[in-house]
């Protein structure tokens, strides 16, 4: 059973529709901004990436009743990306019928903290009954999938996965496997993440975010740059529609690419791996397993959409790709990272970046890896500077790889091919 991608949806700091997001990718337009709220709360990093959603746009997706006492940006972003992906795929949803061949796997990390916070204050004041009916659906981990389920009628598996920053890439692979196993024809897969101080605070406290250009977001050192010293936290959602080739052809759907295969694993928090750092051996094993699952050779990869967060660990990721693919110098494929334009969207990063990867595959370009005037010397020692475009490159792409790595020492790698 072959599996293809027939719909894309995105709600990112630099674009809340696929068309706006595509323009941002091509022009290297960043959505990272300074937030005075973070400054007043004494955050080291006062920059972040938050999608701008007007009240008007909310009402294109939600009814007035649904928006009553609604305070979950993770669900808001996930619904926008998910519904847009289904619309892009031209799949009719939201009718009277239960759609038993359509499933949903929308992952999440820490989610709906604003609603949770409001609920906790009420409970502590002895007013638990004032929570009403809106607390549970918004604060349960699977809230985003449950909202999308009601809006669409999806009646195959409807669930939420969670594997930190690997969540989005894992979701796509879980959906791929379900279709391949013949258990569904269409799967809406992706992930979402809230933003703001309550999501980002823990990372700020761990000193893994950047504090150097708080008043000049446009100057923040990007992924792979010599000056990269910490990530900028982001938020948003990405979603794709996966579909059996048979179903896609029968509908005459536009095909963005084929999912050739992939792999997920964990480093076991051994051999240098920990709660927060990856076991490099496991990263390489994951990439190699993805190639094997896809039945392709190491030299067939044209482009890599990296995890590359703009920390001092970026060169380690490049080394892992070099070792796994047995390629280096000028022989290395193109590689870039979206995080210079969106920040690190945490649980949403994998799915937003997969949407960016598929847009490049479909339109034959590689977007600029921004804010990287000087590439890190340890990276240059491994791969040619030409592999890291600082300006958009138009080039035919046939087979591409996307990997995400997350806290808990978890890895996910997916391979796409032009159909």
């Amino acid at each position, binding site marked *: 059973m072959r599996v293809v991608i027939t719909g894309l949806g995105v709600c990112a700091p630099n674009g809340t529709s696929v068309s706006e997001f595509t323009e941002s990718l091509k022009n290297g337009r960043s959505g990272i901004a300074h937030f005075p709220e973070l400054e007043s709360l004494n955050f080291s990093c006062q920059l972040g990436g938050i999608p701008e959603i007007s009240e008007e746009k909310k009402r294109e997706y939600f*009814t*007035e*009743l649904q928006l*009553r*006492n609604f305070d979950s940006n993770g669900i808001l972003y996930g619904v926008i990306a998910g519904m847009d992906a289904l619309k892009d795929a031209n799949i009719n949803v939201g009718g009277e019928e239960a759609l038993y061949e359509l499933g949903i796997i929308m992952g999440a990390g820490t989610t709906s903290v604003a609603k949770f916070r409001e609920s906790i204050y009420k409970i502590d004041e002895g007013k638990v*009954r*004032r929570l*009403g*009916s*809106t607390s549970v659906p918004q604060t349960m981990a699977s809230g985003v999938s449950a909202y999308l389920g009601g809006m669409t009628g999806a009646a195959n598996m409807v669930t939420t996965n969670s594997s930190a920053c690997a969540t989005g890439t894992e979701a796509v692979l879980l959906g791929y496997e379900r279709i391949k196993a013949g258990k569904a024809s269409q799967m809406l897969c992706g992930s979402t993440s809230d933003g703001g101080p309550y999501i980002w605070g823990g990372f700020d406290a761990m000193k893994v975010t950047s504090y150097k250009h708080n008043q000049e977001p446009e100057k923040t050192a990007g992924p792979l740059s010599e000056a990269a010293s910490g990530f900028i936290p982001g938020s948003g959602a990405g979603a794709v529609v996966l579909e059996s080739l048979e179903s896609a052809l029968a509908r005459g759907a536009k095909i963005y690419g084929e999912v050739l295969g992939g792999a997920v694993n964990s480093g076991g928090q051994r051999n240098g791996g920990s709660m927060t750092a990856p076991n490099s051996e496991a990263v390489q094993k994951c990439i190699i397993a993805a190639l094997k699952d896809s039945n392709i050779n190491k030299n067939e990869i044209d482009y890599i959409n990296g995890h590359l967060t703009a920390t001092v660990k970026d060169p380690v990721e490049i080394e892992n790709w070099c070792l796994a693919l047995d390629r280096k110098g000028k022989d290395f494929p193109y590689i870039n990272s979206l995080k210079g334009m969106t920040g690190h969207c945490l649980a949403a990063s994998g799915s937003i970046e997969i949407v960016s990867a598929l847009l490049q595959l479909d339109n034959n370009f590689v977007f600029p890896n921004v804010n990287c005037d000087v590439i890190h010397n340890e990276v240059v020692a491994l791969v040619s500077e030409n592999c890291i475009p600082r300006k958009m490159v138009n080039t035919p792409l046939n087979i591409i790889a996307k990997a995400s790595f997350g806290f808990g020492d978890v890895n996910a790698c997916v391979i796409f091919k032009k159909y």
Partner: protein
Amino acid sequence: MTTEDIYAKLVPIVKTYLPEDVNESAITPTSDLTRELNINSAHLVDVVLDVEDAFDVEFDNADMESLRTLNDAVAIIQKKIA
């Protein structure tokens, strides 16, 4: 506050929770909120919270159990504000 005054204040609250395919004109003093007006039963607690705010009263668990129609709500409110 007369029965009519209370009822008039209740209608817009109930209207907020009507499903899209139920019109405001379906609301009568005796229509069953969940069975006839098709209000999601989970939303009944939200209706009550809005009523409490509007009339500055508090429904206890027994009040909630006896609440089926707008007339029930009127009776409960009259008892509380008497």
